[in-house]
């Protein structure tokens, strides 16, 4: 059941998280429609097959990876 609180929470998400929610729901819908074989697809094939592999806003990952890289460089500079 869609509650007002859930809607409010969704509005407060960052742009990246909103995009992730949309992608997840589109994937769910596509899977549901694939199961219902007789149901016509509501999405063009090129949309369901679109793949965005580029980690555009993975800032947390970037920070952690920089930390690991700095540790790696320190360890290898000492050896």
């Amino acid at each position, binding site marked *: 059941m869609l509650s007002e609180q859930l809607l409010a929470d969704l509005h407060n998400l960052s742009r990246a998280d909103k995009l992730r929610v949309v992608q997840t729901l589109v994937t769910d819908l596509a899977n549901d429609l694939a199961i219902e074989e007789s149901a016509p697809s509501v999405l063009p094939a090129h949309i369901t097959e679109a793949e965005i592999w*580029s*980690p555009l806003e993975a800032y947390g990952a*970037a920070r952690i990876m920089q930390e*690991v890289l700095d540790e790696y460089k320190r360890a290898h500079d000492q050896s």
Partner: protein
Amino acid sequence: MTNLERYPYLESRNAQGEAMPRPLLPLTLQYDRQSVAVDGLLDTGATVNVLPYEIGLALGCTWSERLRAVALTGNLARYAARVIPLIGIVGQLTPVPLIFAWTQAENVPLILGQVNFFAEFDVCFFGSSLAFEIQPKGSRPSD
């Protein structure tokens, strides 16, 4: 030893059979004593480097809790990823440490992004002639 290398765009084909030239850099990745030759996509919009699962395995990497976990975005957000440092060798340039988000996704592009490929190399794209030039950081006289 030259400090600047020029590469042509390489043709890349999608699942629909459509092809397009893209800035793919041939390089060798090393982990311990293992090495693998790959083509990495120069992706200036990517915040991090991404290593496909099967290439990590080919390098002898072991998926382990000891590797720090990271959350990726886009389609890769669905897959677990862990941080692994490798050595990258581009042509005749000096080898450099490259840090990767090793994703459990297979058959995805090997992505070279801001952390830390574009921190180690300066790249100039010549899109009109479908080529790019690459040199190590600090190579330009003004740097």
